[in-house]
């Protein structure tokens, strides 16, 4: 089965991307490694179902997502949450007025976004229900097209758009809370903290 071997070797170019998505889905390295390994095993066995010339990356992500839903989500015994609180559009942007008490210029605003840590962005993504997390991750972190995401999730593109719309709002609201916790943004309901150092 030289073809099957060549196929899996070609598919390995996406291993870092699949692993990164797997960490966001499972929240830990050990499960993420198992999920990627299982994804490649299924891809190897299902090689005959892959149509030459179609999108290999989307096909692999789709296997990853299905494997996650069928195996790991069941194992985690987490109910599939599909609801998010309603959040105003452009929540973070509209509240950035609070930044401007301390930060007058555009470049200062950029630095403020830079001060949100890697871990906080990951934690904020982790607060999204699964249904929203993967589309937001694929669109805004991996910058896949909406069409490709629709293919991966096996839903209509309108569903992708609505999940992105609500998922992003929830994500940005969470980031706003971290910024507030840092004192990067003055909270609306408490006194501004005294400046340190």
């Amino acid at each position, binding site marked *: 089965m030289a073809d099957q071997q060549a196929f*899996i070797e070609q598919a390995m170019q996406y291993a870092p991307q699949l692993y990164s998505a797997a960490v966001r889905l499972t929240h830990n390295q050990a499960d993420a490694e198992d999920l990627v390994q299982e994804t490649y095993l299924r891809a190897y066995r299902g090689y005959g179902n892959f149509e030459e010339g179609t999108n290999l990356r989307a096909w692999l992500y789709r296997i990853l997502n299905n494997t996650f839903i069928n195996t790991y989500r069941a194992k985690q015994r987490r109910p599939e949450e599909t609801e998010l609180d309603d959040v105003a559009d452009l929540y973070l942007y509209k509240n950035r007025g609070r930044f401007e008490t301390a930060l007058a210029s555009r470049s200062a605003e950029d630095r403020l976004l830079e001060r949100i840590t890697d871990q906080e962005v990951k934690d904020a993504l982790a607060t999204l229900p699964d249904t929203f997390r993967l589309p937001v991750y694929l669109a*805004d972190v991996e910058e896949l097209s909406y069409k490709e995401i629709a293919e991966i999730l096996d839903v209509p593109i309108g569903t992708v758009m609505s999940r992105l719309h609500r998922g992003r709002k929830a994500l940005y609201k969470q980031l706003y809370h971290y910024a507030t916790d840092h004192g990067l943004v003055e909270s609306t309901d408490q006194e501004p903290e005294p400046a340190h150092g």
Partner: protein
Amino acid sequence: MADCDRTIADLHLYLADELLPHSHNLVQEHLRACPSCLQAFDFHAELRSVVSRKAKERALPASLQQRLAETFSLDAPKIFGQVSPFDRPSPF
């Protein structure tokens, strides 16, 4: 020209480059004339780039490389690059 509400409604589609050319041009035309919408677009462009950069795992762990290589009889350095797994810096 498109109004502010219409333009803001297209913000994420524009930043993701998902608008059809006609709508894309309408947004650009509006942004050239409207500093307030431009500011919102700038902010979100930066926010997207921050989220993208900070939520990505960059390195495939050596342990996973090894498992995949063993499972599929891969030539690991050829497939995953020349860096020895033992020299690879920890992602943490």
